[in-house]
Structures are given as structure tokens and as C-alpha cells.
């Protein structure tokens, strides 16, 4: 019922995001679009939804060519989309979010709230999940928010439903629930495009799989006729080892110890509610958890970016609860922040200035007039060394960090933080949005530091990354540590259940 023919899109700057992509979707099928981050899946779907105008190509629906200028066109043609980053207005209610753009009104303007609430309740029951239409969206869990997104599409009578990385933020349990909803929709005749880079999920849910690499279709398979290894090779273009060789750990003395830590988020809600944790020298401790369960605030307390409401943080035998960011850094604490654009880099600054961002006031980077003068030569030398050591692809140390690719920006942050005199590394989503090669590189670096005796605390929304790297796994749920596993006994399902419910068995 949907055909996309020879779709090509070139972005300013020359990136060829889509290069003659062909895709067709049959009525009542779940069609998976598989590819790495940056392969062009999202661009293709944004073209379908009218958010991006293609340079070339044709879209046909029911055999007739159509042009889709904007989302309004897409909606009118029965296309619905669940974006990777939810397109929900946090301060509005579920009902308001669902009807937005196609409001139920009495007269031309007056909103009919009661009717809207009724219709949404009916719709949700039909899809098999209960939801409170009057709840504010920012009070809902991520899984519930996703349902609101699906409701939005179905409310608009979508016949074609696109889901962009729908499981990236879900627990395994929530993923299974969403799969049930998708199967139910398929039975009702909805065609579904399912974007993912997770092989097992694709094999489980899809009727057909199309693999995209660097903006081109590299293959199309039926799940029954293929396997993970083949799909992985198609996706990445070479055979990859899917697991890092972690080796064994030899934990030493306690380096980081947090006791009874409590902290609030920016809206002054307490989101860290009594966390105790210990990280020893030479071990990697991973914190698993669905995003938004207080991990971010916990990490900020540990590195000195947020003041805890209660509790203490110790580094070795020193109490560092109220030490400043640079005070902790002087004691050997490194921190790779989750959001490199917000915390990690000053994008308009040169690579050189970013390399010394955290040590600009120390010798040899500053000196003269009581340490008041910056020493550019020392900065330059340091930058040149790190660029080579960490293989940061940049024309020179003088170009702005903002001109580098995401992977190289992340490597720049990592390079700066991975100094030699480290005691503790706090890594928050260290590989988010990176290609496989860069991920491998950074994982190897982390393990090397661990083997050199550094204590590592790893926070990641990717359960696989946690399972692959950690020697010990803690599960965080609603501001508390609800479980602890040694690497050998951590099973995906068990950890996932804890992440989702906070209880070992329900």
C-alpha cells in the first residue's frame, strides 16, 4: 500500500543521508527498518512524514503518487509517526496532547474536554491499555508516554504507523507490552514500519526486515530466512564481535563510597532517595535503570554538579560531599557527562581550548602574573598529543569543536577525561549516538583504565552496554538501588524486571 521509490536526500554540508532508497510496505504487515545510528532510517521516515523534503524520489500510496509537504499532508494520507524523542507537550494533559491539531470543539473554538476524554478512553480500551486522559504527560512513565504517542496516531485514523526506535527507552517488560499492542494493531489492518538497531527485537516482531547502511538499502530479508549474525554483517558491513572481551577484574580498596544520598531535580522533586553504593579500585560498576529514575542527579551529586539534600560521598578516606567540581577533579575524579553539548564541550571553542577546559587554570596551561595568564603553547602541545592518542579526526587543534562529527566530539571529551593520574571515572552514557567503531574503541579504553586500577562507575540507558562492561551491576528504580548482581549472575530478564518494577518477582 506504500511505496517509496529512489528517495535521495543530501543535507547541507554534503552528507548523503538517503541514496536512492526503495521501500515498500504491504497492508497489515510489520516491516522493520534496521540500521546503525546515522544510517539514514530517521531521515527516510521524516521524509515520509513531511518533516524533511527529499531531493529526489517518489512516494506512492495505494499506487497513486503523492507529495507530502508537511505533517498535515502526512496525517491526511493516514500516516502516523511515533518519534524517537516523543513529540508530547509535557505540561499538557494526555487528552490535550492527543487532540492537539484536531481538537474536539463546540462551535469553532470552544474546547469540549469531556467529549475528548471520552473518545480517548474508548480508543485506549480498544487498543488494550488503560490510560487516564486527564493526567499530565510529565507525570507519566516513559512507557505510558509512548502509548500516548500511539493514541495520537490512531486518533488521527493512521493506516500506516511509523515507530522510530520505540524500544530504546523501554524495559524488556515494557517492550513486550508494546509488541502486544503492535500485533493487535496489525490484526486490525494497520501497516507498521518499525525502526530499530536491535537485532533480536527485529527478528521477534517483524514480518520483513529491510537493512539500511550509509543511506542505501543493503538487503531485505524475512526473519525466518535469516539470523542475527547475517543481519549484523549487513548492518555494519563487516563481521563484528558483538561482545567486548572484558577479562576478569581484581577489585582493590574502596575508592568511592556514597551513603544515604538524597537529592532533588531542578523542579525540586526528590528523585534520589537514599542511595548507598561502593566502587572499588579496578572494577566497573554499572547502574542499570530506565532513564529518569534519578541516575542523572545521582551522578551530578557524585561529581559535584549538584548538592545532595542528605547523605555523604567519600573518596578513599576523604569526605568530598561538599567539595567543588574542580576540587574533586584535583583528587582524581573524571567525569564523562551524558550530554556532551550541554556539559562536555564549548562548541564554538577550538579543539585546543576544549582539551584544557577543565584544567585551564593549572600549570602549565596557566602561569605568569600569579597564574593569571593563559599559556597557549602548552595547550597546543597537549591538544596535539591527545588528538593523536585518541584518534580524534580533526584538521587541526585550531578548528571549532562544533565542526567535528558526534563521534569525534565524544572522543574529545573522553580523551580529556582519561588522564593518567585517575582514581575514579564516572561515565554517563559514554557511547550514546556513536557508531560501532567508536563504541568499541571507548569500551576498550574503559577496560584498560580498570585494569590499571581505576574505579569506574558506568551509567547507561543501554542495558546491553551495562551487561557487556560491568563487573557488578546495580539497578536503580525511583531513586533507590533495588538490586545488585555480580556480572556472572546478571541475567537480562532478571535485571530488566527489576528496572521495570523495582521488585525481583511480582
Amino acid at each position: 500500500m506504500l511505496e517509496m521509490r529512489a528517495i535521495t536526500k543530501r543535507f547541507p554540508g554534503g552528507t548523503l543521508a538517503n541514496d536512492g532508497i526503495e521501500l515498500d510496505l504491504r497492508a497489515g504487515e510489520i516491516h522493520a527498518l534496521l540500521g546503525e545510528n546515522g544510517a539514514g532510517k530517521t531521515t527516510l521516515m521524516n521524509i515520509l512524514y513531511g518533516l524533511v523534503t527529499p531531493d529526489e524520489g517518489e512516494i506512492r500510496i495505494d499506487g497513486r503518487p503523492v507529495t507530502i509537504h508537511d505533517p498535515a499532508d502526512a496525517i491526511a494520507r493516514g500516516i502516523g509517526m511515533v518519534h524517537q524523542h516523543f513529540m508530547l507537550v509535557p505540561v499538557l494533559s494526555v487528552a490535550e496532547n492527543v487532540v492537539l491539531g484536531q481538537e474536539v470543539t463546540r462551535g469553532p473554538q470552544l474546547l469540549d474536554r469531556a467529549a475528548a476524554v471520552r473518545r480517548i478512553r474508548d480508543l485506549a480500551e480498544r487498543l488494550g491499555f488503560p490510560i487516564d486522559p486527564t493526567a499530565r504527560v510529565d507525570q507519566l512513565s516513559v512507557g505510558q508516554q509512548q502509548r500516548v504517542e500511539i493514541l495520537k496516531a490512531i486518533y488521527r485514523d493512521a493506516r500506516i504507523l511509523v515507530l522510530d526506535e520505540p524500544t530504546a527507552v523501554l524495559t524488556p517488560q515494557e517492550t513486550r507490552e508494546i509488541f502486544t499492542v503492535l500485533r493487535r494493531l496489525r490484526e486490525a489492518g494497520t501497516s507498521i514500519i518499525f525502526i530499530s538497531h536491535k537485532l533480536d527485537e527485529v527478528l521477534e516482531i517483524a514480518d520483513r526486515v529491510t537493512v539500511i547502511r550509509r543511506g542505501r538499502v543493503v538487503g531485505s530479508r524475512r526473519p525466518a530466512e535469516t539470523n542475527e549474525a547475517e543481519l549484523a554483517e549487513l548492518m555494519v558491513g563487516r563481521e563484528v564481535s558483538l561482545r567486548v572481551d572484558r577479562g576478569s577484574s581484581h577489585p582493590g580498596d574502596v575508592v568511592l563510597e556514597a551513603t544515604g544520598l538524597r537529592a532533588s531535580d531542578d523542579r525540586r522533586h526528590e528523585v534520589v532517595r537514599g542511595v548507598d553504593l561502593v566502587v572499588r579500585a579496578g572494577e566497573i560498576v554499572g547502574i542499570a535503570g530506565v532513564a529518569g529514575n534519578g541516575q542523572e542527579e545521582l551522578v551530578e551529586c557524585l561529581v559535584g554538579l549538584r548538592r545532595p539534600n542528605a547523605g555523604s560521598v567519600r573518596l578513599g578516606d576523604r569526605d568530598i560531599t561538599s567539595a567543588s567540581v574542580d576540587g574533586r577533579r584535583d583528587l582524581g575524579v573524571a567525569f564523562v557527562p551524558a550530554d556532551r553539548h550541554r556539559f562536555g564541550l564549548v562548541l564554538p571553542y577550538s579543539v585546543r581550548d576544549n582539551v584544557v577546559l577543565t584544567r585551564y587554570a593549572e600549570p602549565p596551561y596557566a602561569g605568569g602574573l600569579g597564574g593569571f595568564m593563559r599559556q597557549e603553547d602548552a595547550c597546543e602541545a597537549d591538544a596535539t598529543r591527545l588528538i593523536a592518542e585518541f584518534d580524534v579526526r580533526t584538521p587541526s587543534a585550531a578548528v571549532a569543536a562544533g565542526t567535528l562529527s558526534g563521534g569525534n566530539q565524544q572522543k574529545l571529551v573522553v580523551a580529556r577525561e582519561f588522564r593518567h593520574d585517575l582514581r575514579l571515572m564516572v561515565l554517563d552514557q559514554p557511547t550514546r549516538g556513536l557508531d560501532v567503531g567508536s563504541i568499541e574503541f571507548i569500551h576498550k579504553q574503559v577496560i584498560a583504565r580498570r585494569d590499571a586500577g581505576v574505579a569506574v562507575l558506568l551509567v547507561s540507558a543501554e542495558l546491553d552496554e551495562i551487561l557487556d562492561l560491568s563487573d557488578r551491576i546495580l539497578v536503580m528504580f525511583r531513586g533507590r538501588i533495588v538490586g545488585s548482581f555480580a556480572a556472572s549472575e546478571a541475567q537480562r530478564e532478571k535485571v530488566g524486571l527489576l528496572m521495570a518494577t523495582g521488585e525481583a518477582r511480582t
Partner: protein
Amino acid sequence: MTWLRHAWRVATIPAYSILLAFAIAAILILVSSVFTPTGFDPLLPIAAYLRLLIGAFGSTTGLTNTLVAAAPLMFGGLAVGIGLKAGLFNIGVAGQFLVGAFASAVVGTSLAQAPTVVGMPAAMLAGAAAGAFFGFIPGYLKARTGAHEVVTTIMLNNVALLILTWAVNDLVRAPGYSFPRTGEIGLAALPVLAGRNLHLGIVLAVATIFIVRWILDRTTLGFEIKTVGLNPDAARYAGMRPVFITALTMTLSGLLAGLAGAIQMLGVIGFYAPGITAGVGFDSIAVALLGRSDPIGILFAALLFGAFRAGAPLMQIETSVPIEVIDIIQALVILFLAADLIVRKVFRVRAEKVQIREMATVTGSWAGPAAGGKAP
């Protein structure tokens, strides 16, 4: 020659913006001439602009006046510029200028008989300190509470005007004059270097341009200011204290604005009276934006607007075109800088962007705590 090419690339949009502003203002002069007793005169804009040029550059007096008018604009432009570098938009230069002028007048009066080497620096320091204090208030409030400086500094402008009027009426009014004013500053005045009024303040202004440039480019303080302006979160992560830098930069900004008031007082006006002009306030904003908040850019922009201010009276006397046309031209220049799209379309140029990146931080902190505000 490469530096010349670089200079042109940087200056293209500003130069064309000025050209375009004059063109639009010419249309306004033409249209509005219909409503005057002399009636429509197609040559009026040319006549007016010619007088403007002659008034600013046509004689030694004109040139001197240009430099004298440019000096406080350099200080004021630097005040706005250094604020912008830290992501702060100080539109309270007018108020800081007034308290600076007042303080230097009061100290200057009391040291009127002392040797110039004592009285003049003391009066300058008083102006700087008063301005710094008046800049510290909004800086502290922004850092501690997130109250946006765009509103607080404007409010403080009005407060300064009223409180100083009260002070000169009730506290320091000099006897023997028919209107409230401070006394003579005598020997505390800035020495005249040449001609009738080419005073030392001009040299001080140019020197300050290079001092501020040195601070921003070569020192750790400058690095901190720029980092806070470009990315306050990253500054916090890097171990800087955005709260402290915000308060400090606003204080420095006020200090520079206070110096603008001081040199104007000690070099030109000579006494404080209610209603002394604080036009330097808004002019400084235009100067800083035109100079892209870069000290060297500010130097040239201040000279340019100084020339406008110096030439405008002659224009008004001889062609009856009101001097407010300069304000209009200023606004138009800012308009074309903000919407450089227009300039690119009209002149078909491809040149470096003139947008000041730190404005994103200014606007981003609107009505919310500065990103650095939640530091522990």
C-alpha cells in the same frame, strides 16, 4: 594584506548595514519634510548628511568633537561588550553612567583645590566605584535569584535618575546657583591635551580598549568570562563558578560605564545637574552590537557614532533635520545587524555572520534562573 581581507570579511555586514540605515533614514527625512513649513525638498537628505559629515570631520573642532564624543562611547561600548561576552545584556549603562558622573562630580568638587594628580584620579576612581556598585546589584541579583538583567538594569536606570535628582536637590546642592547642581570641579578636571577640549579621557578610553582585549584574550579570567557566556553548564562542569563570574562581569561592566560617566563629567560637563544627558546609555548598546562585542570593533563603532553625535547639531541647525535621526539610524543599524538576511539579499554578499553567539545565553536565561544559577 591578509589581515586587510580578514578585516573586510568581518566588517562587510556592519558596513553595509550602516549604508542601508542611512538610505532608509533618507527616505524618512524626505517623507517627513512634507509636513514641515519649508515643504518637500528632494535634496534634503543629501544636504543633511553633508552637514553631518562637515560637523564631524570638516574642521579641527569637528574632529576634536568627534573624539570627545567617542571617548565615553568606547567605555560604554566596552561595558555592554564585556557583559555580552559573559552572556549578560547590560542595558543599564545609562544609570551606571549617571551614578559614575555624580560620584566623580561630588569627589571632584571636594578636591577642586587639590593638585590635579590627586583630585582627578580620585574623582575617576569614585566614578568607577559607583558604577561598579551599580552594576554589581543586577549582577548579584541575576547570579543569586535569576532576575533578568534586562529588566532590573532598566529599572535601576529610572531609580538612578530619581535618587540622584533628590541627592543633588537635598544633599549636595551647591549654593549660589539658580538651579540645583554640584559645585565646580576646579583642578580635578581632566587635563586638556590640545585645542579647546581634547581631554586626557580619550587616551584613557583607547588604552582601556586594549586592556579589556588583553583580559579577554590572554587571561584565565577572560577564558572564564567567555566560557560562561558561551555555555554556562560547561563552565560549571569545568569547575568555574558561573554565579561568581556573572556577578563579577556585571560589576566590571558597571565599572566601565561608571568610567564613561566620570570622563564625561571631568572632561566635558563639569557639574552634575538633573537632566544631564545620559544618551550614552543607548548609544553604547548600538556601539557594542555594531562592534560585535569585540574591543577593536567597539573602538571603530564608537568613533563612528561619536562622529554622528558630533556632527548632528550642525545638521539640525542648518537643515532643521532633528538630531533624533541619529537614534533612528542606530535602531536601523541594529535591525540590519540582527536581520543580516536583508543585507545579504540587498547587496548580494556572502560574508561572515555578525550574530553575537552569547545572545543565546542572554535570551536563554530570560525569566528563568541562569543555567549556572543552580550551582551548589
